[in-house]
């Protein structure tokens, strides 16, 4: 496999339009084919530092982003997501083609990776210590995640925490960060280093755009980390930052509510969740200012590397 930015755009486009490319993201390999130029262009930009192969080989997921029929190419154009030849979602308007790829890949991971305990969370790491930010959509976790990843924190994921059984280590799967609505401008203003892809309007989540994951996070994606802090973030405009400790019991239940497969794993899920909570300090975190938030986590993460 080669870094995508070492393959010419033309070769990449030829491969993805024909038999597809194999894209490596963390522990997963995805075979992806599409003929849609905007998807190809956004992939080439946002996954520039990921490894890909244009040769055939094993893949965990086989995805295709395509237009449903000849008719729908012209009349209210639509786009479909196919997974192993099935189309699990209704088609979306054609301009949302790149979004359906990212959402579809999230869906594949959260539905088919039960070798991990999976939480709906952003995860970042510093000094070998991982911080888990579980949160419902709109809680401000992706914005915080983007800002931390642009401030010398290593991005593991902005969407799914993957926790290995036995070791309870977090597995890194850095992919583009999905920014929504005002967050897009907030992150552009926060750092000139943010590389942001095409803006997609009128999705079910509003306006969205994806931020390229930092190079170092992608290059170190085979390095795992120990969970140290669980912080449930909540963005409240104008609020003063507050970091309130949660009891282990409260944190346990809140984390279960944010898990993709806690119930599926049964007793194994309970045991893994118990160990995770034992290992972590747990907080409710409210903020309105990203710099304040970054200072807070810089101050509470242990300075001593693991």
């Amino acid at each position, binding site marked *: 496999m080669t870094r995508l930015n070492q393959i010419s755009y033309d070769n990449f486009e030829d491969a993805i339009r024909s038999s597809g490319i194999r894209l490596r993201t963390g522990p997963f390999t995805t075979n992806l084919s599409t003929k849609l130029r905007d998807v190809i262009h956004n992939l080439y930009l946002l996954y520039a530092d990921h490894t890909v192969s244009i040769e055939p080989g094993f893949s965990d997921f086989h995805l295709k982003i395509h237009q449903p029929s000849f008719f729908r190419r012209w009349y209210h154009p639509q786009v479909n997501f196919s997974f192993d030849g099935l189309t699990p979602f209704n088609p979306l308007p054609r301009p949302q083609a790149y979004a359906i790829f990212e959402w579809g890949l999230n869906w594949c991971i959260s539905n088919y990776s039960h070798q991990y305990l999976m939480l709906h969370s952003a995860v970042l790491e510093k000094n070998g210590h991982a911080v888990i930010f579980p949160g419902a959509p709109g809680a401000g976790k992706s914005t915080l995640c983007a800002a931390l990843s642009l401030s010398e924190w290593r991005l593991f994921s902005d969407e799914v925490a993957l926790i290995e059984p036995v070791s309870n280590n977090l597995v890194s799967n850095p992919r583009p960060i999905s920014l929504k609505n005002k967050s897009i401008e907030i992150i552009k203003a926060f750092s000139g280093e943010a590389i942001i892809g095409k803006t997609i309007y009128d999705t079910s989540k509003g306006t969205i755009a994806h931020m390229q994951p930092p190079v170092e996070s992608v290059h170190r994606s085979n390095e795992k980390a120990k969970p140290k802090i669980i912080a449930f973030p909540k963005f409240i405009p104008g609020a003063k930052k507050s970091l309130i400790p949660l009891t*282990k019991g409260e944190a346990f239940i809140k984390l279960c509510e944010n898990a993709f497969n806690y119930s599926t794993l049964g007793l194994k899920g309970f045991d893994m969740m118990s160990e995770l909570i034992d290992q972590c300090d747990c907080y409710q975190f409210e903020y309105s200012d990203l710099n304040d938030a970054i200072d807070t986590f810089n101050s509470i993460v242990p300075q001593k590397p693991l």
Partner: protein
Amino acid sequence: MRKTQAYHFNTEVWSVARVGVFHWKKWPDSDAVILYFSGNGDTHLLTYLGYLILEELRKSPKTQPELIQVLTALIKNPDEVLPFPTEMVKAHLFHLKKIGLVVS
């Protein structure tokens, strides 16, 4: 009517739900206890009193007075002058029944 209800509650025998195993997660500095019940795969946040009630009923079915007698002995504090919180036990039993962990 009220007398009949009270009488019924005192003689009613309480026991844990038949199918399933209780798995507990406790922390030394916390009154909260997490229960995973293998019978239906549900997870619950309970108080320490809820934990004691379930553990006592797991050992053997009991009426409410019997349960209170055992619990009083278990959490007896020589400095404690307040009466045992009978109403709290009653409330816990109703809650545990509602979430399918005990039957009467």
